[in-house]
């Protein structure tokens, strides 16, 4: 492997080991900035740099980039860290080990959730101070718009009883068993299709005298689940509980994507994939910057449609939309985006906590705009309702479909209701 590299790096041979060390240091720094870089990637990077050489900064940059980055989202962080690390290091070439200062600096800025949890246990005050410290990665997000209510709200504010109850219930819920047929097959004695491969193999046991029929049927898997959770002020109480539910789902099921929206859309899938519920919730509330703010359902859905729908709604996805539907402005945007959303997924389920109130009818304009486009409308105000939801996911389009009921009710008459 090193053959083409030997003549190029011959002049810098004594520095070869140091270069490797530096690349390792660079990888460490990237890791601290939150990227996942395994040792194999670092080895690749060293090998790659050896075969490309270090004459050109641009080539060097892309060499490291191609070996260490495997997601487009990581590009910005890589870029920032690259400039920070390789620029400063060049300046003080001779000071060996002097780089530890910068690393320590980055380390201080990046407090990992794990550390934070440990500190939580120690004392609350220190934690509050750490929270206030600006975060390397979050700077860009913070500067988005000043109008938003940017509050990194803590899940710990949920009352203890509430939390305990909710978690217990989450654990006990049987998880949705919704299935879709794939185009793959599995052997099945009651299957409807013959399996020629298995038949021929079997026949050889008898030396080809008997060719007995064998059958197969399509394999079934759980479809992807996409949750869009409204976290605006009016919804925050419910959505917190719901995030716990999503976390439980993410643990058990492979393809669950979670988004929150208030004034803007945030993908919290990665955050929720942490095993420990506390860590997951912690990271999710860190990621979300518009907790308990206002809501712009239409625009948020528009963002989702434009940026994410083609990436996560493939292969028969079910969408859970959790919102009260209280949109005041831009009703036509909401209606258009709802239509697009419902047309891009297999099933759109609207979970509305307001349905928990007796005699409630969705008469607000926002709700009226959303109703025609949902496959199902369900309540999600209590743990019982969550249980119902699970049941609904298990059986395709069963009873409790309030959407149709409401649609019909409003078509025929304008009954009075206490909204």
């Amino acid at each position, binding site marked *: 492997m090193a053959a083409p590299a030997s003549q190029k790096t011959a002049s810098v041979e004594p520095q070869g080991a140091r270069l490797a060390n530096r690349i390792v240091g660079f990888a460490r720094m990237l890791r601290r900035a939150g990227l996942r870089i395994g040792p194999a990637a670092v080895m690749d990077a060293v090998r790659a740099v050896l075969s490309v050489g270090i004459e050109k900064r641009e080539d060097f940059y892309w060499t490291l980039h191609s070996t260490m980055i495997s997601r487009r989202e990581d590009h910005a962080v890589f870029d920032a860290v690259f400039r920070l690390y390789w620029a400063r290091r060049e300046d003080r070439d001779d000071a060996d080990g002097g780089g530890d200062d910068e690393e320590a600096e980055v380390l201080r800025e990046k407090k990992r959730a794990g550390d934070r949890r440990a500190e939580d246990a120690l004392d609350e005050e220190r934690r509050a101070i750490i929270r206030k410290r600006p975060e390397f990665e979050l700077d860009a997000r913070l500067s988005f718009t000043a109008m938003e209510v940017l509050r990194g709200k803590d899940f710990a504010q949920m009352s203890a009883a509430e939390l305990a109850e909710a978690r217990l219930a989450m654990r006990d819920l049987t998880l949705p068993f919704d299935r879709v047929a794939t185009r*793959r097959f599995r052997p099945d004695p009651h299957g409807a299709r013959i399996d020629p491969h298995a038949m021929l193999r079997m026949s050889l046991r008898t030396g080809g005298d008997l060719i007995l029929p064998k059958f197969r049927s399509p394999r079934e898997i759980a479809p992807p689940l996409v949750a869009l959770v409204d976290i605006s002020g009016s919804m925050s109480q419910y959505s917190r509980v719901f995030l716990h539910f999503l976390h439980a789902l993410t643990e058990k099921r492979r393809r669950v994507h979670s988004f929150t929206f208030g004034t803007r859309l945030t993908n919290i899938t990665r955050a929720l994939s942490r095993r420990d519920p506390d860590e997951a919730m912690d990271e999710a509330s860190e990621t979300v910057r518009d907790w308990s703010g206002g809501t712009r359902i239409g625009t948020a859905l528009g963002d989702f449609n434009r940026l994410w729908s083609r990436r996560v709604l493939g292969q028969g996805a079910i969408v859970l939309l959790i919102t009260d539907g209280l949109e005041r402005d831009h009703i036509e945007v909401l209606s258009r985006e709802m239509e697009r959303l419902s047309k891009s997924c297999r099933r759109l389920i609207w979970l509305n906590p307001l349905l928990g109130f007796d005699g409630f009818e969705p008469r607000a304009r926002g709700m009226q705009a959303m109703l025609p486009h949902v496959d199902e409308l369900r309540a999600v105000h209590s743990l019982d309702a969550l249980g119902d939801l699970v049941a609904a996911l298990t059986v395709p389009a069963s009873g409790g479909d309030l959407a149709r009921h409401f649609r019909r009710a409003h078509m025929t008459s304008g009954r009075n209701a206490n909204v």
Partner: protein
Amino acid sequence: MMAQPSTRGLPQSIDETLALLTDGGYVADRSLATVLFLSLTMQRPLFLEGEAGVGKTEIAKVLADRLGRKLIRLQCYEGLDVSSAVYEWNYAAQMIEIRMAEAAGVHDRAEMESGVFSEKYLIRRPVLEALERSVDGPPIFLIDELDRADEAFEAYLLEVLSDYQVSVPELGTIRAAEPPIVVITTNRTREIHDALKRRCLYHWVDYPDAQRELDILARKVPNANATLARQVVVFVQKLRELDLFKAPGVAETIDWATALTALGKETLDAETVSDTMGVLLKYQDDIVRMEEGEGVRVLEEVRVG
């Protein structure tokens, strides 16, 4: 671990890689050439991600053409399975073989088994083909739109790409003497698992900048008027800045320039733009938005700039 790598005709530096792509009519930027060069020298699959129509598939084609290698393409789709991607047995012919053996009175089971499951009846699909030795050197193996295949296939591919071998239970393991040059493309309709990406060199293929896009047009639509080409590029670049549902790719730019040239246009005007918008934008929402005034505004900007 692998046999002596074949470096016949492979570029030996980033500059050579760039020249090779340019020769083949592919105007690449340096970052792409770097990744490609590394993928060739390190014998790692190249993982290209990017929006539709930015020229991901084209790279494999140009590479095959310039290196004089065979191009084997595996177009992925949902439900792609081993029998259509790797190999399948020719059951009908096998049945006949069994009957023939019976008629000839062969009752030796081992003999029959080796007769029925011999390479003669093996139908080779792209993966197996890619592992085969060929006179021109290892082929280019293009795995196109991997995101369309389901996860089960992705997991299978992981095995193939790490050892470059496939096992056929009845025949044994088939191993590539020299690993093929693998190019994987995805449109990101689904996230590809990290484990697979880790085995590859990753590159996000972005839309080209104005200068590069102009170079591309000069190569692909040589008879286009120079003013027109410049206006087309500026227009398209401006469209990409708007939040469209689907921004036009390079393929669309080329199509549009070709269409306008065929119509005998030498500059852009509002009417032509509106008439030919369907070449550039493929979503009704985007087209409506353009017709509602944004198209004219962008055109004004193009004229001024």
